[in-house]
C-alpha cells in the first residue's frame, strides 16, 4: 500500500497504528522520506537521524506486538524538535556556529515526555540563532522557507518547526516561545501554535535565551491535536524549579464545551493602526461570527500595551547576555585559539555568534551595566509588573482575549532585515503574554488576497490553557462551517 499520511492529523496517524492499519516503522519511514525530499527546498530541518528514528519506530512496533506498549493516542506519531532542545546523542546547534560539533549529553524534560508518550523524534528543526528573530533569517544553517510561498519567511524564531508541520514533514513539532516565537510562525505558516503558561512545560534542556520568558510550545495541524500533545507533555518537572506542580487537565475532553460560559475581551490597544487590511478583516469576521452566535464580547483596555515591545527587549536581552556567556570556547562547541585567554574568548565569540545575537548581547549587557541598571532593567521589571496587573484587571471582565497574532502576513525575505526595529515590531501582539506569563494560542482564521495565512491569537488566564483550547476549537469549527 502506498501510504499518504502528510495530510493526516497526529491523532489519525495514532489511530491507524493503534488499529494495526500501519506500523510505526512505516509511518516513520514515510515522514523521513518526506523530510529528505522536501528539506532541500524548505530547509526546515538542521539535522535528522534516520537510523535512530527507525530503530526507535521498530522498537515501538515490537513493544506493541508484545502487548507491552502504553496506551497513548500519540503512540508512534512523529514529532520534531526545534534545535535548541536537548536530545541525547544528537547535535544541538541552536542554529549557531558557536555550537559547532556539540552533541547533547542529556535529554530535555520535553524529550522524556515525548518518549514516554510513545512519539518518534524524527529530527531537529531550524530556527533563528538562539531563538533570536522573527523571520528565521538569522540562522547559521540558512533561512527556512515558508511552505505556503517559498519567497516568504516562515516567521521566527521557531520557523523550522512551523514549516515542517505545515509542509507535512511531521504532524507535530515543538518550538520555543520567548516573545512570540511559536505563535508568529504558526500564523505565517497557517497552523496552530500554542505558548503555554510559564511553568506549564518543563524548560529543562531547552537552551536558554531569556529564562523568565522562554516556554516550550507545540505546533499542530488543528486544536484537537494540540489538546492531545499538550496533555502529553505538560506538567511539573523537578529539574525545573520554575515549572509548576499543578494537575494537567484532559484538554481533549473539554474541547466540546467550546465557548460555553466564556466571555471574550476585545482589547482596543490591539486594534489600532498598522494592521494589514486583510488581517483586520479576517479578525473582524471572526468577531462578527461570534457576535451572531451570541458569545459575550467585552471591550477591554490594556493600557501598558505600548510599553510591551520596549520592556520585552530590555528584559529578554538582559537575560540573554547572561545566558549566552557560557559559550566561551572553554568547554564545548567552537574555539578559536588565541594568545591569551581574553583574546580566545573574544575571537571565539566574535566568530561564533551571528550579528543579531551580538546585537542583543550588547544591548543586554548595556541595560545591566553599573549606572544603567536602574534606568533600564529595574524600571523594566516595574513596568512588567504593571503589565501583569493590566491583564489581571482585564480578566475580571473576560475569560479570553482576542487579537491578531501579527499585524501582517508572512513577509518577503530581506524585507525587514535592515531595520531591526521594524523586525521587532512583528512581535507587537505576542510579547505581552510572555511578559505576563500567560498562555496564548495562534490558529488560522483565513488568508489574505495572495493566499497567505492569517493568524488569530487568543490569550488566557494563567494556567487556563483549557479555556484557550476550547475557544480556539470553537472558532476553528465556526470557520470550518463557513
Amino acid at each position, binding site marked *: 500500500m502506498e501510504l499518504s499520511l502528510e495530510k493526516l492529523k497526529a491523532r489519525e496517524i495514532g489511530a491507524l497504528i493503534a488499529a494495526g492499519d500501519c506500523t510505526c516503522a512505516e509511518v516513520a519511514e514515510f515522514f523521513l522520506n518526506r523530510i529528505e525530499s522536501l528539506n532541500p527546498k524548505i530547509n526546515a530541518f538542521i539535522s535528522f537521524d534516520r537510523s535512530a528514528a527507525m530503530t526507535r519506530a521498530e522498537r515501538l512496533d515490537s513493544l506493541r506486538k508484545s502487548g507491552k506498549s502504553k496506551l497513548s493516542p500519540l503512540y508512534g506519531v512523529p514529532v520534531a524538535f526545534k534545535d*535548541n*532542545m*536537548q536530545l541525547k546523542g544528537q547535535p*544541538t546547534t*541552536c542554529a549557531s556556529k558557536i*555550537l559547532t560539533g*556539540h552533541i547533547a*549529553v*542529556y535529554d*530535555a524534560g520535553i524529550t522524556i515526555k515525548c518518549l514516554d508518550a510513545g512519539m518518534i523524534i524524527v529530527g531537529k528543526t531550524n530556527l533563528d540563532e538562539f531563538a533570536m528573530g522573527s523571520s528565521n533569517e538569522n540562522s547559521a544553517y540558512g533561512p527556512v522557507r515558508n511552505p505556503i510561498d517559498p519567497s516568504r519567511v516562515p516567521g521566527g524564531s521557531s520557523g523550522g518547526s512551523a514549516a515542517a508541520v505545515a509542509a507535512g514533514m511531521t504532524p507535530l513539532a515543538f518550538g520555543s516561545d520567548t516573545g512570540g516565537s511559536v505563535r508568529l510562525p504558526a500564523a505565517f505558516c497557517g497552523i496552530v501554535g500554542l505558548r503555554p503558561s510559564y511553568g506549564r512545560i518543563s*524548560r*529543562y*534542556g*531547552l*537552551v*536558554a535565551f*531569556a*529564562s*523568565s520568558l522562554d516556554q516550550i510550545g507545540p505546533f499542530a495541524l488543528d486544536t484537537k491535536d494540540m489538546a492531545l500533545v499538550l496533555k502529553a507533555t505538560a506538567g511539573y518537572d*523537578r*529539574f*525545573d*524549579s*520554575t515549572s509548576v506542580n499543578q494537575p494537567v487537565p484532559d484538554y481533549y475532553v473539554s474541547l466540546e464545551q467550546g465557548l460555553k460560559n466564556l466571555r471574550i475581551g476585545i482589547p482596543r490597544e490591539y486594534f489600532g493602526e498598522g494592521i494589514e487590511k486583510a488581517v483586520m478583516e479576517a479578525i473582524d469576521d471572526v468577531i462578527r461570527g461570534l457576535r451572531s452566535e451570541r458569545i459575550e464580547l467585552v471591550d477591554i483596555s490594556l493600557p501598558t500595551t505600548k510599553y510591551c515591545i520596549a520592556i520585552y527587549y530590555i528584559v529578554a536581552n*538582559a*537575560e540573554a*547576555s*547572561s545566558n*549566552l*556567556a*557560557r559559550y*566561551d570556547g*572553554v*568547554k*564545548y562547541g567552537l574555539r578559536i585559539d588565541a594568545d591569551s*585567554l*581574553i583574546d580566545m*574568548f573574544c575571537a571565539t565569540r566574535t566568530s561564533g555568534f551571528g550579528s543579531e545575537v551580538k546585537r542583543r548581547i550588547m544591548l543586554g*549587557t548595556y541595560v*545591566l*551595566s*553599573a549606572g544603567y*541598571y536602574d534606568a533600564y*532593567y529595574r524600571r523594566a521589571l516595574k513596568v512588567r509588573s504593571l503589565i501583569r496587573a493590566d491583564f489581571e484587571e482585564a480578566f475580571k471582565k473576560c475569560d479570553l482575549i482576542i487579537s491578531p497574532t501579527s499585524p501582517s502576513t508572512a513577509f518577503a525575505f530581506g524585507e525587514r532585515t535592515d531595520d531591526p526595529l521594524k523586525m521587532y515590531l512583528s512581535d507587537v501582539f505576542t510579547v505581552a503574554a510572555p511578559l505576563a506569563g500567560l498562555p496564548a494560542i495562534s490558529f488560522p482564521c483565513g488568508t489574505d488576497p495572495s493566499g497567505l495565512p492569517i493568524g488569530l491569537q487568543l490569550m488566557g488566564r494563567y494556567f487556563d490553557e483549557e479555556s484557550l483550547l476550547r475557544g480556539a476549537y470553537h472558532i476553528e469549527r465556526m470557520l470550518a462551517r463557513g
Partner: protein
Amino acid sequence: MAEYEPVIALEMHAQLKTASKMFCACSASYGGSPNSQVCPICLGMPGTLPVLNKRAVEFAIRLVLATGGTVHPRSIFARKNYFYPDLPKGYQISQYEFPLATGGRISIDTEAGPKDIGLIRIHLEEDAGKSIHQENGESTLVDFNRCGVPLIEIVSKPDLRSPAEGHLFLLKLKQLVEYLDICTGNMEEGSLRCDANISIRPKGAEKFGTRCELKNMNSFRGVERALNYEIERQARILDSGGTIVQQTLLWDEKANVSMPMRSKEESHDYRYFPEPDLLYLDIGADWIEQIKSSMPELPLQRRLRFVEQYGLPAYDADVLTSSRSLADYFEAAAAVSADPKLTSNWIMTELMREIKETEISKIKITPENLGELLLMIKSGEISGKIAKDVFAEMVVSGKQPKAIVAGSGLTQISDESYIAQIIDRVISADPDNVKKYLSGKEGLFGFFVGQVMKETGGKANPTLVNKLLKAAFGRLGKK
C-alpha cells in the same frame, strides 16, 4: 612616625559540608580525582537549570541563628556575571540585593575582655571550579569538582582593630562552623576562605582611611601576617606624605609579601540581576523554628555542660571545648574511662602536646583507646609512668593499649608474694637505713619504695608496694 589604628573588616567564605552540591545531585566532597564529581548541571551544559539544595539553606540558617542575625522571610538569588574558565555558566549564582540574612555578631576574647564583632550579612552562593596552571606555563587545566559546592559568604563590620583580633575572629568563626557541623573550617583545603578590607587612621581619628582589599590568604596565620604587612605598607606611605590608593592586593604566602592585582582583573562590572531560573527563597517561621530546635550544641553551652555534667574545672572545660573535635574526643574517651578529670588531665597534657604538631583528626589514638589506657591505670594494671610509655607507642602505631602492654611485658606486677620477695631482698641489703627508719626517720620510706620499684623495672604496683613495705617494717619493728 605617627601611631596608627587599623580598621579591618573580614569577608569570609565557608564551604558547606552538604552531601550534594548547591544546585545538582553531584557529591560536594573534597579531594575527588579531577572532574569526577560533575554533571551537565554543574558543568553549565546548554539548557540545564539549577535546583536549590534545601540542606544548604538549612546549614546557612544555623549560622545565622548562632550569630543572632535575622533570616529574611524572602531572599533572592542573583547572577554575578564574569568570564573565567572555571566558571562554566559565565555567571555565579549568588545573592546580592536581598541576602539570606543580615546582622548578628561574633564575640571574641581580647586581652581587654570580650568584644562583639558585628556581621553585615550572610548569604548563599555556589563555588567555582579550580584552575590549575601547568608548570610549563603553556596550558591551564580546569577541575570542576568544586564547581557548585555550596558556600556562604559572611561579611563582618569594620569592627576589628588589629590583626590579632582578626585572627581571633577567624578562629571563633571556625569554632562556630565546626560546632554547627556545617563546614570543616579547614583554610588550607579552602573550605574556609578569608579576604580582608583594611585601612589605617591616626590613633584617635574618627574618619576612616582609604581601604585596600587583601585576597588570597590561605591560612589563619597568613591572614594575620598579611594584615600586619599591609598596615606597615600603608603606614610607610602615610609617613612619607603619600596617599593610599584604593586597590586589591594578593597575598603571597610563600614570599610573605602582597602584590597589587592587575587593574584589568579588578575592574569588574558584575551586572548582578535576579536569577530567573530560581524561585524567590521564601523561608517560613516554622522552618526556622524547626532548625532552631535541632541546632547542635554551641561552644558556650557545651562548656557549661562540661562543668556541670563532668565536674570539670572551668579552665579544663574551656580548653576542651575550644574545638568541637577536641570536645567530642574528650566525651568519647571519658565515656570509656569513666573518669572525666583523669581524662581531661591526659588530654590537656599528653594529647595536646601531640595536637600541637598535627590535627586531632590525624591523631592515631582513638578516644576509645585513650579511655582504655586510663582504665588500665585505674585498675592498677599499669602505673602512670608506664602508661606514658604506652601512650607514646600508641601515638606512633595507633595500636590498642592492651596489645602494646601484652606485647612488651609492661603489665604491672601485682603478685603480692613476688613483691614481698623483692622487699625482703631490699631490706636485708641495707640494714643501716632500716635501722634509721625504725628509729623514727620516716622520710626514708619513699627511698625504700623507690628501691623496690627500681628492682622491678618500675612495674610493681605502687599501692601494693606501699602496703607490703609497711607490713614488712611493722614486723621488723615488733621484733
